[in-house]
């Protein structure tokens, strides 16, 4: 008998332009900042952790028959009468995988969460492209995209606009299956690299997905994106809650007591995720969408030793 009431949404600002001139200026500014922060540490322009042939000494190991004599460290032999081989870090392109959550839960918030996460992805991608690294942008929701056209692979600064166009074309829709998506990604990639997961992590098994990346020797960095409406909802009274991801409804009469309980539960979930990342030596940063995204990038560069 009741007519459906008007849906109150927190996505009113999604119509605003995703990448404008100001955004591009911000990207350039971030690049300068990054260079300053990483100056003296960069070598053409990134080092991988693979051992190989280069001028950069890495370590010694005992000689084994069949090893190349050229890498025997004779100085050590004269001092110890044991043969040791000199190991050098292998120089190669860094692979930066930006795994972008495009589920329905990202289609929410004020400021708009999906805009925010794409801007973050664009900024990280720009820094990668400017550093002559290979940047992959892999959107996912319930699963990974199957075709190559649904993800981006780029190298060099000239691919910036292609990257931006790609990001602009993405849509936040559908349910999340973070763990399955990350497991699929980890199993399908032969080239290891930096895996940056940008998501709200609204998947009870998200930690299993992160573990899958870790086990496959990816350097994992989790960017946990939340909106102010999620951390501190200002809702009271008789409400019908609509899940933007699943489309499910739930009637609830919200009181201050319930809100307190929600905040506590939400906070515990976020802290649990962070604690997991810290204990697993994964990079983690939590960003509220009401904070400027460039602050998040700078924080990542300074504190989290991101891209180092």
């Amino acid at each position, binding site marked *: 008998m009741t007519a459906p009431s008007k849906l109150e949404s927190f996505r009113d600002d999604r119509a605003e332009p995703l990448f404008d001139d100001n955004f591009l200026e911000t990207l350039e500014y971030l690049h300068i900042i990054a260079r300053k922060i990483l100056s003296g540490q960069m070598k053409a322009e990134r080092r991988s952790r693979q051992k190989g042939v280069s001028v950069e000494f890495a370590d010694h190991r005992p000689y084994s028959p069949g090893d190349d004599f050229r890498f025997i460290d004779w100085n050590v032999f004269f001092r110890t009468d044991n043969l040791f081989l000199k190991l050098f870090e292998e120089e190669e392109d860094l692979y930066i995988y930006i795994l972008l959550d495009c589920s329905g839960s990202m289609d929410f918030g004020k400021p708009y969460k999906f805009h925010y996460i794409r801007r973050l992805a664009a900024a990280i991608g720009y820094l990668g492209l400017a550093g002559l690294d290979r940047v992959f942008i892999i959107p996912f929701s319930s699963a990974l995209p199957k075709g190559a056209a649904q993800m981006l692979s780029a190298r060099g600064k000239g691919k910036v606009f292609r990257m931006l166009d790609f990001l602009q074309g993405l849509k936040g829709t559908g349910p999340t299956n973070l763990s399955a998506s990350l497991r699929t990604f980890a199993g399908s990639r032969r080239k290891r690299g930096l895996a940056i997961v940008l998501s709200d992590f609204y998947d009870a098994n998200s930690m299993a997905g992160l573990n899958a990346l870790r086990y496959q020797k990816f350097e994992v960095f989790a960017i946990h994106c939340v909106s102010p409406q999620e951390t501190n909802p200002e809702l009271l009274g*008789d409400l019908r809650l609509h899940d933007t991801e699943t489309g499910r409804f739930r*009637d609830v009469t919200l009181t201050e007591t319930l809100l307190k309980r929600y905040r506590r539960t939400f906070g515990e979930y976020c802290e649990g995720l962070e604690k997991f990342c810290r204990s697993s030596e994964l990079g983690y940063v939590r960003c509220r969408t009401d904070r400027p995204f460039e602050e998040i990038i700078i924080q990542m560069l300074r504190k989290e030793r991101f891209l180092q």
Partner: protein
Amino acid sequence: MTFALPTALLFFGLFVPVILLYLLKQRRRRVEVSTLMFWDKILRDEQTVTSLTRLKKLLSLLLQLIFIALLTLALARPLFSGKWTGARRIVILVDASASMLVQESSGTRFELAHKKAADVVRGMSFGDTAMLVAVGAEPEIAHPFSDSRKDLKDALDKIKPTHGEADFSKAMRLLDELPADERQTHVYLVSDGAFSPVSAPVSTNLHYAFLKVGEASENVGITAFQVRPLPASPRDFQVHIEVANETDKEQKVPLELRIAGKLADAYELTIPSGGVVNRTLRQYSADGGEVEAIIESRDAFQLDNHAYAMLPPPRKTKVALVDTNDLFLERALATDEGVDLTVLGGDDFPRKTNKFDVVVFTRWAPEKTPEGNSIFVATWPSDLGLPPKGALEKPLFTDWDREHPINRHLALQNVSIEKGVAVEKASGFIPLASSFNDPLVLLKESEKQKVLVVTFDPGNSDLPLRIAFPIMIANAIRYLGGLEHGERWQNPPLGSILSARDLDKFNPIETESMPDTVIEPGEKRIPLNVTEPLVAVHYAGFYRGLSGTNEIPLFAANLSSRTESKIKPAEKLPLKATGNAPLAEIKGGFRLGSEPWFFLVLVAMMLSTVEWGLFHRRVIE
């Protein structure tokens, strides 16, 4: 149970929309969230008992309906039976007698009584009605039965103590006349109880309480004070005073007597403990005026230390003697101090007779009976209705009415009369003295006129040589001239209500105009209504009249009450039962403090709070 505003019960109709709203599915505000993951987790814990939730919802509806019902009933103002609520009918009898002016340490007794009566009014409960009665010489209903504490308090503030006695027996008769009521009647007697116990009605619904005020008990006071001019000498007057000693010791009390504000005499009275002293004092006053008696006694009750009386100035009777050389009569009149005599010849009559109080005709009479008071000696007009029937030879005074004022102090036996006139019996004439069956002195009285006829010539008798003659003449002149008004010398009792005629009686100066204002002892002016002037005598002191700018002394009023001078308060209820059954005393009991609507609103507010709590704990799946 009845309702003061039954139309308010229509608000019960609000049940319908409330129930409809309850039955309709609640329309909720729809709000987007990014995930229900957290809400699911919270609400799973919250909704473990769904039946309890349903019960809460039902309880919420029930509370809302009760809330409406309570407010509707409150608006309708239900009125319950007095039996159920314990409501009372209260009668507050406030003693307004003179003894309530006794000064106690914390104020006068009346001020203390006022506080106690105000406490009773303040303590009225829901359904109680109270009547306020000021008990003076006459019980006055200061406020009829009312449930308005404010009105009762205002009425209480207006009650003032009088200077008279309180007649509680009349107040008890008032209780007897109260209409029947199912509620209990509580009678609060707020008094010092300094009076003899009076009979009080007894019934199962009638309860009494004595709210005693006062502690002081010692007093010396004037309990009687009166003045009167001596009949033989109008300028001399007697003062009668009685002073009572209500203390445990003999008292020596100085007494001052003041006439027209000036000290006339002073005495010292020795009064035994519990006794009285009476004194009759003789004083002289040429002009009359205000007479005061003051005793000096430092007791708690000052009102009875001062007594008042009004002594009217002596007034001469204007008498005309239409004479034919009756020297005996002329001398008798001329020597009377109370007579202003004018001797007229027959030629002057009737031209100058109107301004006289009495005209005496001797041996000559006009043809027609003139207006006004007249005395005819030996002859009288033919139209008087007293036809002569012949001569009366050597009559004797055989009978005379000794009680009549004209015959007062007369000894008429053995008076020798040579000759008289026998008259027919005439209607309207009263024989005051007779010789056997023949009247010698006759009196005819009407409202406008008094006529005295002497049927013999005193010149033909030895009466002028006797002491009875001038007394008889003086008596006759005073009686016909209107000076024999005994009331004139009396003071009206406190508590009396005086009409215009009463005022005129007390007016010592015979002016034609009535006073238009009466000035009370406290200088309060009471304008008189021309048609029916009434003056209540409540205060001791001198009352004066005001006619234009002329001030006229009217009368004095005195407490002069042995009862009121006994100021010792009673220790218990000064009432006695009329029958064998004892008087019931007031006891406590359950009573609602105010009207039920107040409690209904209170309960509604409490329910509203409960409903608020339920709402904030409610979670609907």
